[in-house]
C-alpha cells in the first residue's frame, strides 16, 4: 500500500509545480510565451487572464495533456511531457467544462474513478466523501439528471477521491448560486488546509480569487504580466478590489497596466 504523500520516488525535495521557459505555439499562434514559475507546497495560486491569455494551455501542459513546444513543466519533479504517469495519481482536477458520464449514477462514476486512481476500499471512500460533500442523497441518481450545482459538487468529490497533493481547479464555482459557491470555496479552503495541498486555480471570479489565493499569476498573450499576492497587486494598482485591477489590465486603463503590458516578463 502506498500512502499518498509518502515519498518513495526520490522526489521529496521537488516543488509541486516547477515551470521553466514554457512555450507553446500552434503554427503562427503563440499560446504561451516562455513563462516560468514555481509553486510551493500548500500554496493556492490563481492563474488569471482574459480569454486567450494562455491559462488553459498552461494548465494543460501542467497536466501533460499538451506537450510544450519548448521549456519544461515539472510536477513533483517529473517532466509532464514525458513521464506524467509517474505522478498522475498524486493530482486531480475539476472543471465544469469536462463532464462525467451522464448515464451512470453518481456512485458508479465515483467508484470507477476511485478504482482508476487506485483508492483502497473505494466504496467506503466514496461514502465518506459523499457525506462530506453533501451528495450522499445523490449517490444513486444518474449524473446526467443533476442540476448544475449538484454536478459541480459531484465533480469536486471526484477530484478529491484520491486526496490529491496537487489540485487543479478550472472555474470551480462557475454557474453556481452564491450560497453553493461560498460553500464550495469553504470545501476547497478546508481541504487545502487539512491536506497541505497545492492548488492551481483558474477563475474569472475575482472575489473568489481574493478569498482563496495567496498568489496571483496574471497572464496576457501568453506572458506573465504580474506575479504577486492579491493584496500586493491591488496595492500596486491603487485599487480596492482585484476585479478593478483585472479590468484596468484588460482595458489598459492605468499607467501601471500599460507599463506592465510593456514589460510583461517571461
Amino acid at each position: 500500500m502506498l500512502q499518498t504523500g509518502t515519498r518513495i520516488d526520490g522526489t521529496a525535495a521537488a516543488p509541486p509545480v516547477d515551470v521553466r521557459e514554457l512555450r507553446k505555439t500552434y503554427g503562427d499562434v503563440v499560446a504561451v510565451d516562455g513563462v516560468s514559475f514555481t509553486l510551493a507546497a500548500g500554496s493556492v495560486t490563481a492563474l488569471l487572464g482574459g480569454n486567450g491569455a494562455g491559462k488553459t494551455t498552461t494548465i494543460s501542459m501542467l497536466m501533460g495533456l499538451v506537450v510544450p513546444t519548448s521549456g519544461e513543466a515539472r510536477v513533483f519533479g517529473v517532466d509532464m511531457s514525458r513521464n506524467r504517469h509517474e505522478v498522475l495519481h498524486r493530482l486531480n482536477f475539476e472543471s465544469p467544462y469536462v463532464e462525467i458520464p451522464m448515464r451512470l449514477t453518481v456512485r458508479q462514476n465515483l467508484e470507477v474513478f476511485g478504482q482508476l486512481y487506485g483508492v483502497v476500499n473505494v466504496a467506503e471512500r466514496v461514502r465518506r466523501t459523499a457525506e462530506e460533500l453533501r451528495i450522499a442523497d445523490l449517490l444513486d441518481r444518474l449524473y446526467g439528471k443533476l442540476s448544475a450545482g449538484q454536478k459541480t459538487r459531484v465533480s469536486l468529490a471526484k477530484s478529491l477521491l484520491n486526496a490529491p497533493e496537487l489540485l487543479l481547479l478550472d472555474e470551480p464555482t462557475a454557474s453556481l448560486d452564491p450560497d453553493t459557491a461560498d460553500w464550495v470555496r469553504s470545501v476547497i479552503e478546508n481541504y487545502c488546509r487539512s491536506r497541505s495541498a497545492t492548488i492551481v486555480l483558474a477563475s474569472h471570479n475575482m472575489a473568489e480569487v481574493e478569498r482563496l489565493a495567496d498568489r496571483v499569476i496574471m497572464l496576457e498573450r501568453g506572458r506573465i504580466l504580474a506575479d504577486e499576492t492579491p493584496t500586493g497587486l491591488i496595492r500596486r494598482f491603487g485599487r480596492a478590489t482585484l476585479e478593478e485591477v483585472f479590468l484596468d489590465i484588460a482595458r489598459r486603463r492605468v499607467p501601471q497596466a500599460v507599463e506592465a503590458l510593456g514589460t510583461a516578463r517571461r
Partner: protein
Amino acid sequence: MSLPAATVLHPQTGPAASMRRIRAMVRRHWFLIRSSGPRTAELIFWPLVSMLMWGFLQSHLAQTTSLAAKAAGLFVGGVLLWDILVRSQLGFSVAFLEEIWSRNLGHLMMSPLRPAELIGSLMLVSLMKLTVAMVPVAILAYVFFGFNLLGLGLAFAAFFANLVFMSWALGLVSTGAVLRWGMGAESIAWLIVFLLLPVSCVYYPVSTLPGWLQPVALALPSTYVFEGLRGLVLEQTFHGDYMLRALLLNLVYVSGAFVLFRALLESARRNGALVQMGE
C-alpha cells in the same frame, strides 16, 4: 467538514495496478450497457436482421438451386462471422467514442490510466458487447435455420480469434484518427470495416474478384476466415494454413495499429487536440 488528510492508494505500477485500471474501465462500460434496455437491443438489432434476411434468402435458394442446397449454412455462417468482425470493431470504437460524447476524455487522460490500459479495456469491452450481441443471434440462427455456429468446433475458435484480432486493429486505427483529428474523423469508426466488405469475400470466393483486386483481398485476415468457412461447409475441410496466414497478418496489423495509435496520441498531445476534445 473534515475531509481526510490523506487516503491510502494501491501501488500504481505493475500488472495488478494495470488490471485494476482496466477493470475500472470495463465496469464503466458494463454499467452503461446494463443501464439501458434500448442500448442492449440496439447491439442485437442489426446482427439479428442480417441473419434473418440472409437465412431466409438461403432457404429460398436451397429450394431452387442445387448449389445453395449443398451449401446450407454458407450464408448464415458468413453473416454471423461477418457480424463478429463488425460488432467487435464497433464495440471497440464506440466504447472510445462514448468517452468523447460524454465529454469524459479529459478526466481519463488526466487519470493514471495508461494508453495501453485504455486499449486493453477497449478490447475487453468489445468482447463484452460482442457477447451481448451475438449469443442471442447465434441461438436464433440455430432455432430458425438449424445452423450451429459452435458446431464448427475448433474452426470456429480460429475464425473467431482472427476476426476479433482484425477488428481490434481496425478499432485502433479509427480511434487513433479520432484522437488526432477530432470528431471530424468519427465516420472512419463507423465505415472502416464496411470498406473491407467487398474485398473480404464474405459470400463469394476470392477468384470472383478481378485479378488486380485479389492481392488486396489476400492481404486481409478476414478473407482467409471466409475462405476457410467455405472450405468447411462445401468440402468439409478445415484449412489450418489459412488460419495461420490470417494470424500472421493479424500480428502485423495489430502491432502496426498499436504503434500508429500511440503516434497519433502523441501527435494529439502536441497539437492540443486532447484538450479541445475534452472540453
